[in-house]
């Protein structure tokens, strides 16, 4: 039994509560343990510090006796099972001794040793041994077990029945004051906020702001990536390490430059920067205006200034030599196509502008080219560029001229119109040119000399103006604190950072100093950590409520990845986040918000085959997503041949449609857990818009009905013409290029539509009729093409005989809930076969709140191959031995029930024995989407029977027929419901639950039951619980 206690390092620990209770009753016993630990501390740590070999450690007689009685027979001089020997413990080197004790600590705590069937120590002996080990390992730092118990994978170690028994509901829940390292999602949201990146997406025809697109146009590296395992992943245990900081240094540099540049465009973004930089930027503006003016019109300016003397100042023209297009033997040779030879947009526009100046009626191409070349030469363009341009024009003059017309250069790329600068500026320009121009100077050289003079003058003026005033520096610090850290600086910070800014300015000037200050703030610990500290007066249990500001962030980050919204900020500022009801009001408000769209998974969205967004609070949906872990299929690439089609495009659609299913269940918010586990309705190749799917299917039906009785297979171009009105009316995609092409398109379309409708199907799935790159027959809600139809194969749906349900989710045969969704089944399978062990482990840990030890490193966890046996037979042979079975009994009987599905999630009654010697028929590697391209192999019948134990309910435990039977029982289990709530607790609290959180969990469970299975009610209950609201300081 486990409760919280405080370690020496201040970490919340867990220990046996009955021991805790007894220690409270027996001060002598605690003294004994402390005495033992001090003895060991003195003996071991002094030697460790000196680095010398230790004398033998003292092991108390009673501990030695327990070890000798129960352990040494297997871990002593005669036998060292698992390569562990305990009789020499006292004489081991310090590091080795601590390592061994850490291992021992875990197996003793969790009663994994002595093994079942061997004599067991009494409870008192076990506790005595564990107390001694705990004291010994803590003398060398935090024990490994303490650290492990903070990890998500150790969450189930606390006894489930005790948590929900009510016996501990009187304990006062709290969370320790803490910093919580930001997640990968918060990192993106933070940078998107400070960089003013606000992406939009057109959804159902309306432009909507979207959170979750991170293509900011600058390169930032996200160092705060969450682990890739399934289940709850984001815990408050992590600390920033060197890798994080190094990455953040580069991120800060990149972001500071970008933020500084934003100020040029948006004056209100950071007004203090605009004010500090005003003088400098005005100089830059004036110089840039002069430079642009000269680069565009220097030839005219020079002519105006020098008139008839201008020619004499020009450099001597040296033409470039252009290679002939003939081959070595003098024959004209094929040249690269025009599109492969063009020189890039900017160069093409430059050539066009030059041509406008010099193209004259009657000039030959040679004369025209020479004028162009002469201009580029006078301007001082690089010889290579001139050569490339003249080569290009020489070879492609006709194509180029046609291109100018085709792409309407005259309208799209008008040359700049000459407008002189204001008279005083023209005067400056003229004086400077006259001062610097020398005979033979090319124009670029003249401009460079002028610019150099103006820059010197500008720099001098800025130096004379001096640094910004102190008030302005203070305003800068204040604004950057607000922009980056979302708070004003404290007086001490204001003074410190103002002084720092002034020193940066002294060293590097205004612009560099501002960027450096931005970098400094981004590298502060409070940028990368969330802060959750108690404030105000402590109650009688030493607990304090979260400060209103911290509470506003805790609530916002519980449900989204973004900072608090304006209402939450206002509530904190107005003192309306100080009671449980205040929390409830804000949590309920956020849960009902639907005015913000979120990209669920950017990698799915990027596929352009499907949408992947939601407008419900993203972290609500993400919990279900991560809990079930079906997105883990995304990095799994599978063999198209074994799939029998195009698996890659089906892959992302599977995830997005599982997301859509979850979203629809959460939106209805009734019996959520049960429906997630048992729904028989799924999305299969659907945009999420029933009406759009209905229209798309009807359109196909209409086209099919129109042509089906015609001899379309033998249509000629004349036949097509007779149907032009209809074709235009239904907007048949891909038509209109040419009559011949139209015939082919119609035949392709009708061949495909016939397959979908000629067997009496009620509606046709609106998938693409063309093998690739063709027009789509339906759109996503954001206007893209709907792709990935072969997702249907994972549901055993034949595309050429599918009564396509336009209204979805719709019933699919042989399915029951997310555990039978192909996304979950693939994510919990191997590349080439199913994985009953991992599926069983998932159910054992996620739904039955139980634990399965890690695979011992001495075990070769590979199922032997055998071409004549099913996977089940091979697995049974491997794991049937008693040493394996003690763990596998917890997994195999659960996971094997899913053998009614293969590793692509297809339902089956026969298992294909995919070995070369079992090959019956080789099928083609490529074909239309409706064709099953799999090779045929011998098969054996599937045995998917199993056994359920661990629900704590005799009516549910027992033999099961298959996964569908298993799922039915799990969905009725109280323990399963509570297990999901335990995981929700971890997700929203960022830590494992303790016995002191018992009331929080019971309340959440009751909230679910009383609300008719509302997950929103669970979230409200958790986020208004003492575990969430109350904090306790870590004692020194």
């Amino acid at each position: 039994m486990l409760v919280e206690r405080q370690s020496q390092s201040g970490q919340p620990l867990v220990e046996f509560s009955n021991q805790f209770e007894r220690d409270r009753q027996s001060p002598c016993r605690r003294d004994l343990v402390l005495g033992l630990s001090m003895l060991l501390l003195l003996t071991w740590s002094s030697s460790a510090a000196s680095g010398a070999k230790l004398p033998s450690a003292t092991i108390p007689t009673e501990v030695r006796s327990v070890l000798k009685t129960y352990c040494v027979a297997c871990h002593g001089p005669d036998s060292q099972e698992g390569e562990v020997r305990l009789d020499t413990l006292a004489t081991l080197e310090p590091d080795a001794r601590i390592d061994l004790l850490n291992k021992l600590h875990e197996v003793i705590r969790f009663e994994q040793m002595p093994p079942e069937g061997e004599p067991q120590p009494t409870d008192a002996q076990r506790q005595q041994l564990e107390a001694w080990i705990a004291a010994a390992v803590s003398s060398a730092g935090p024990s490994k077990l303490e650290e492990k118990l903070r990890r998500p994978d150790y969450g189930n170690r606390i006894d489930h029945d005790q948590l929900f028994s009510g016996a501990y509901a009187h304990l006062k829940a709290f969370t320790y004051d803490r910093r919580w390292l930001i997640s990968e999602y918060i990192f993106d949201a933070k940078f998107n906020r400070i960089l003013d990146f606000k992406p939009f997406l057109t959804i159902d025809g309306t432009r909507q702001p979207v959170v979750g697109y991170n293509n900011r146009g600058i390169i930032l590296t996200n160092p705060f990536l969450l682990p890739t395992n399934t289940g709850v992943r984001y815990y408050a245990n992590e600390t920033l390490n060197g890798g994080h900081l190094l990455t953040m240094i580069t991120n800060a540099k990149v972001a500071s430059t970008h933020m500084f540049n934003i100020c040029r465009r948006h004056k209100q973004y950071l007004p203090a920067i605009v004010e500090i930089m005003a003088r400098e930027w005005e100089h830059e503006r004036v110089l840039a205006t002069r430079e642009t003016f000269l680069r565009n019109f220097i030839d005219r300016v020079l002519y105006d200034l020098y008139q008839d003397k201008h020619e004499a100042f020009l450099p001597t023209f040296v033409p470039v030599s252009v290679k002939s297009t003939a081959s070595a033997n003098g024959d004209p040779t094929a040249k690269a196509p025009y599109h492969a030879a063009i020189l890039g947009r900017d160069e093409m526009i430059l050539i066009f502008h030059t041509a406008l100046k010099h193209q004259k009626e009657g000039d030959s191409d040679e004369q025209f080219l020479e004028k162009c070349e002469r201009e580029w030469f006078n301007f001082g363009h690089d010889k290579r560029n001139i050569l490339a341009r003249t080569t290009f024009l020489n070879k492609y003059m006709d194509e180029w001229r046609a291109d100018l017309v085709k792409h309407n250069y005259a309208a799209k790329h008008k040359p700049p119109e000459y407008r002189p600068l204001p008279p005083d500026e023209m005067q400056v320009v003229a004086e400077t040119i006259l001062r610097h121009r020398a005979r033979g100077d090319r124009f670029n050289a003249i401009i460079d000399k002028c610019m150099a003079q103006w820059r010197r003058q500008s720099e001098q003026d800025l130096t004379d103006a001096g640094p910004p005033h102190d008030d302005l520096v203070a305003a800068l610090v204040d604004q950057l604190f607000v922009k980056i850290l979302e708070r004003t600086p404290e007086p001490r910070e204001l003074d410190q950072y103002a002084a720092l800014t002034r020193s940066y300015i002294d060293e590097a000037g205004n612009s560099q100093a501002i960027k450096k200050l931005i970098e400094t703030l981004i590298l502060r610990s409070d940028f990368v950590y969330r802060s959750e500290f108690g404030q105000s007066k402590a109650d009688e249990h030493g607990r304090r409520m979260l400060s209103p500001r911290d509470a506003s962030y805790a609530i916002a980050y519980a449900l989204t990845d973004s900072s608090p919204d304006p209402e939450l900020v206002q509530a904190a500022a107005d003192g309306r986040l100080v009671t449980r009801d205040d929390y409830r009001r804000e949590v309920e408000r956020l849960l009902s918000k639907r005015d913000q769209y979120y990209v669920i998974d950017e990698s799915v969205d990027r596929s352009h085959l499907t949408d992947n967004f939601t407008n419900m609070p993203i972290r609500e949906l993400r919990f279900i997503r991560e809990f079930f872990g079906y997105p883990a299929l995304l990095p799994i690439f599978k063999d198209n041949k074994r799939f029998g089609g195009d698996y890659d495009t089906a892959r992302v659609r599977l995830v997005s449609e599982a997301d859509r299913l979850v979203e629809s269940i959460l939106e209805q918010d009734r019996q959520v857990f049960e429906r997630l586990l048992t729904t028989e309705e799924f999305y299969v190749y659907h945009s999420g818009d029933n009406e759009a799917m209905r229209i798309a299917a009807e359109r196909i039906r209409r086209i099919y009905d129109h042509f089906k009785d015609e001899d379309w297979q033998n249509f000629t171009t004349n036949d097509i013409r007779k149907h032009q009105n209809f074709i235009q009316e239904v907007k048949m995609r891909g038509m209109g290029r040419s009559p011949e092409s139209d015939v082919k398109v119609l035949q392709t379309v009708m061949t495909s539509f016939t397959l979908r409708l000629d067997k009496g199907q009620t509606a046709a799935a609106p998938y693409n009729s063309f093998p690739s790159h063709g027009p789509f027959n339906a759109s996503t809600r954001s206007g893209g093409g709907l792709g990935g139809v072969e997702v249907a194969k994972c549901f055993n749906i034949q595309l050429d005989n599918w009564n396509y349900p336009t209204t979805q989710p719709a019933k699919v045969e042989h399915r029951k809930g997310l555990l039978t969704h192909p996304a979950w089944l693939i994510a919990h399978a191997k590349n080439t076969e199913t994985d009953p062990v991992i599926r069983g482990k998932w159910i054992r840990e996620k739904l039955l709140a139980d634990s399965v030890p890690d695979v011992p490193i001495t075990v070769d966890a590979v199922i032997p191959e055998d071409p004549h046996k099913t996977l089940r037979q091979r697995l049974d042979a491997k794991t049937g031995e008693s040493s394996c079975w003690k763990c596998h009994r917890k997994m195999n009987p659960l996971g094997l029930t899913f053998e009614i599905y293969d590793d692509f999630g297809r339902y089956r009654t026969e298992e294909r024995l995919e070995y070369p010697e079992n090959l019956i028929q080789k099928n083609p590697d490529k074909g239309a989407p409706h064709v099953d391209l799999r090779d045929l192999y011998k098969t054996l019948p599937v045995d998917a029977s199993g056994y359920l134990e661990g629900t704590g309910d005799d009516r549910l435990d027992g033999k099961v027929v298959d996964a569908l039977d298993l799922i039915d029982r799990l969905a009725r289990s109280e323990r399963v419901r509570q297990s999901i709530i335990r995981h929700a607790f971890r997700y929203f609290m960022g830590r494992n639950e303790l016995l002191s959180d018992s009331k929080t969990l019971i309340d959440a469970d009751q909230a679910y039951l009383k609300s008719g299975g509302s997950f929103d009610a669970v979230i409200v209950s958790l986020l208004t619980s003492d575990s969430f609201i109350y904090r306790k300081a870590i004692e020194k």
Partner: protein
Amino acid sequence: MLTNRRRFLQQSALGTGALALMPSLGPLVAAPASEGFPRRFVFIRKSNGIRPLEVALPTFSDQEAARDRKKEAMEADLDRHELPTWLQPLESHKQHMTILQGLSCKMSENGHWSYSSVMGAFKSGRNSLSGIKRATIDFELAKLFPSPFGHIELSLTGDYNTFRTGIVAGYSAPGPHQRNYCYADPQTAYNELFKSVVDPGGVDSENQMLAFLQNDETYKAQVLSGYEKLKLSNHIDSLEAIRERNNRVEKMSGTIKEHLPTINKIHADGGPNATTPEKQEAMTAILIAALTTGLTNVVTYTIDELSTPIKGLPGNETDHISIHQVGHNGGYSGVSADAIREKIRIGHIQQVATIIERLKQVPEGKGNLFDNTMILYFPENGEGHHSHGTEAPFVIMAGDNCKLDIAGRYIRLPYHGTEGHKTLGNWYTTLLNAHGNLIEHYGDLDLEMSRKKLPQTGAIRRFIA
């Protein structure tokens, strides 16, 4: 959890791509190599595939040529054969050369581009971050041989018309879901890598900032205890450690000055007027200096990519060549696509030869720097312009202390999907196993080999010396 500075150095050695950009990182505590010198690796990625026949030896007997064409496993001593024309710049280094044929790369992406996948042996999902499954092989090797910059990535890529410049997204991956940065033009690479010499003021300024932050965080940590204090202590220790590293790199400035390359002015401002061969030469000079100064032991260099503009190619100086067009068999100015392909490769191999020759001039121990260096020249996308990944020919140049028994040979491994076939994963596992990372298998498995139940994990044992 970070517990001490030494662990910080280990963690940060290659925990992030940002390290490669850090202009001012002190040397890491180098892991001692067996002979006391680190191993160095240069990965040179080229686009448009390498067609297997391009690396076939011209002096093969009819029988050998037939076996080679039929993709049958075979070996030949290079010193008994002539090299293909384009490899002849390496003629005098033939004893260090291996031509490795028959590796497949179907578990990485193929077609036009492979992005990070060819060096990670995974599918990158069209270069999506979530598709990056693991640290790429170059980063894995760099972990074994730490250095101040850990890993450096260079690239010459573009948008068909102009070159990318500055610091841009790279193709290597420091870890899962992480994309490395890379230097996209010689001047930027020069400025960033040799900043301690080129811009010492910048380094001082950064140290000032780090010192301020360290004091500030220390002040905040005073009121904390337990695990929360530890979190800030880690932050403070990290800041201090980076300052120390900056100082140590500053102390290397003498060595850096000694090996500082000269970069032509044409490369200023991203070098818009520099030709492709000029850019390659300048990048090579920087690459060599990065190795000879000891700033890094691992460089990944994308010498071209499908959208890299080819300007100034000898014989086609005035043409603006698209590699993509060449891939579709398009010639320029009367020069066939095959001839242009070969000229591009010759340009690459000349750079490889320069690297070898320059490294051989720098003494190290009883030999020279090249003795401890391995250069791998390979296609990013297998056997052609539109590849399927059935073959990925490698040209490997390895110094005498190379831990592989492959030098001086043309090796063709059994073809994809047949008994004894080896994948990119086997090859990378071989590199890792040979240099101290005893990973069982690096990379994803080949799905066809799996379907055929053919063994495919582990190193190519006979290659390990």
